[in-house]
């Protein structure tokens, strides 16, 4: 009961932020953080619950972004020198759906691969996949404009309502984040979630009681990828410009840091991790450090967390709380 009240209070507090925070820049930071939290939650499903060492996650994010942007802007490409495929402009909500579907489809592909290729090799495949996607985005200029970026992407809109002001975007992202959290929670607390954990903990045993390992691997990657794609689509229409740098490995690393330090395999972990690493750069900005120093700090922090809080912050807190209760 107390939990529910706390959660409700927390959400109310979050909703109220644009009402008293007058700083447009800080609101922007919160929006970006929110988008990253959605991406982190999706990675947590795959990395934390299903236990898949997938380090190509940024590919889903970027594919969602590009697909959504392209469908909303319209594009035409030469499939062969004579045959041109043209897609007209589409409303943003449809484009975002396309982004989610495209990312989900890639998730399906990776899921099937994950079953065949195991452990450390799968890590490498996932990274390679993301890199190939980046290089395609960089080189297939006809489709993606390459390094010149896709710009003037239509802003977030639903029918005729356009989300132009920061508070409106903030509330939209917050809503999507809450919805995603609920979806993940439902999945995790169901037979699907149990099956994912089972295949992570003891695959042979899971199979012996009828758990179809491939099916659940694919389910976890599809949902995870689709959600990351949604985050990417939101990003594309919020920032309104997208270039191949969106596929850089560092962004996967950022998401991994968020999930791992927050606590992988917990619901609150990616949220906590996302808040910390989304807002930390702003905090560090006050010290006027070069951006490299910030990354060095991240690296060191990751190592420290792995050593001293191997489960992440949320479980560490929980344990602290538990032992206090007993004492």
């Amino acid at each position, binding site marked *: 009961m107390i939990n529910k009240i706390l959660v409700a209070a927390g959400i109310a507090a979050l909703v109220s932020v644009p009402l008293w925070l007058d700083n447009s820049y800080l609101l922007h930071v919160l929006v970006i953080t929110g988008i990253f939290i959605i991406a982190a939650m999706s990675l947590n499903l795959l990395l934390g619950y299903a236990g898949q060492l997938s380090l190509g996650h940024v590919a889903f994010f970027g594919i969602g972004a590009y697909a959504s942007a392209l469908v909303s802007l319209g594009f035409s490409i030469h499939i062969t020198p004579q045959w041109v495929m043209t897609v007209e402009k589409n409303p943003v909500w449809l484009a975002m759906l396309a982004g989610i579907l495209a990312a989900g489809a890639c998730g399906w592909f990776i899921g099937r691969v994950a079953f065949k290729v195991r452990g450390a090799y799968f890590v490498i495949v996932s990274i390679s996949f993301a890199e190939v996607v980046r290089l395609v985005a960089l080189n297939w200029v006809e489709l993606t404009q390459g390094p010149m970026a896709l710009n003037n992407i239509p802003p977030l809109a639903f029918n005729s309502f356009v989300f132009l002001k920061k508070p409106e975007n903030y509330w939209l992202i917050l809503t999507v984040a809450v919805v995603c959290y609920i979806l993940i929670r439902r999945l995790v607390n169901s037979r699907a979630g149990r099956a994912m954990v089972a295949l992570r903990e003891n695959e042979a045993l899971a199979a012996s009681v009828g758990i179809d390992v491939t099916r659940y691997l694919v389910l976890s990657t599809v949902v995870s990828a689709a959600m990351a794609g949604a985050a990417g689509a939101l990003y594309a229409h919020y920032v309104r410009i997208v270039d191949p740098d969106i596929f850089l490995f560092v962004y996967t690393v950022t998401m991994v840091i968020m999930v791992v330090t927050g606590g992988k395999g917990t619901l609150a972990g990616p949220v906590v991790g996302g808040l910390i690493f989304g807002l930390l750069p702003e905090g560090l900005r006050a010290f006027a450090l070069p951006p490299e120093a910030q990354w060095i700090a991240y*690296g060191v922090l990751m*190592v420290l967390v792995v050593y001293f809080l191997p489960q992440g912050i949320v479980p560490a807190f929980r344990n602290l709380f538990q032992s206090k209760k007993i004492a």
Partner: protein
Amino acid sequence: MDQFLQHCLNALMLGGTYALLGIGLTLIFGIMRVVNFTHGELYAFGAYMMYMLVMLTGANFFVALALAIALGVALGAVLEFVLLRRLHSADIDTTMLVMIGAWIALQNAEQLLWSGVAKSIDNPFPSAPLVIGVVSVAWNRVFVFVTAIFLVGVTYVLINHTKLGKAMRATFQDRDTAALMGVRIGNIHTATFALGSGLAAAAGALLGPVFVAYPSMGDLAAAKAFAIVILGGLGSIGGATLGGFILALAEELGAGYVSSGYRDAMGFLLIIVILLFKPTGLFARKERIG
């Protein structure tokens, strides 16, 4: 046809250093089961050491090369001792995350120290290329090739004909039994990581003067190293050597006949395609290294 031969020759020159990269990683990955994300940084380190020694302190090129490799070995040993020993060979997720943290810290430290501007490194070789019939090759690349092959040979001898190498092979095959037989696993791990890192640094020290040195050069190198490990099979020096040349050839031909933009994609595409058909790598031989 001439074009093709030229591409092959270029691939030969490049393949040797790729082999060094690959062998280093296959040893670390194979013996320690660590997804070594810092491998690329050691490569960059080797190149930057060359820059510092040759350009900033005016040292002799060959002395600098030897020193850069030695420093790479040292750095590898330090990294293993500080970061990995304490983990008592924890599961692969944990070590992977530690390696990622180290990789970020190292690369950004390099960026902070040397700035993002690419640095070129002088070499003492004549700039006029060696011409052999219809193909030509720059002298510095010939040097790189010869040195790389030499280092591959040294590594081979080390692994197959020394006591240390024997211990490493035993650890690769069955760690617990090796420990029972008196092998100090901790020391073997440090030695392996140091050796692997030294090879990566050597590759960087050799290629740095051929191309340029820039902070993120390690990332592509690491990716290629992983591709080579998968091509050649975990723990196989012969496989990694062959893999290095195959990758170099695929890149050269891809860049030459498809598009140079996709050159770097070759490695990744190879990885994906191979693993899809043979999930354990092309020449996977789980039983022994060497």
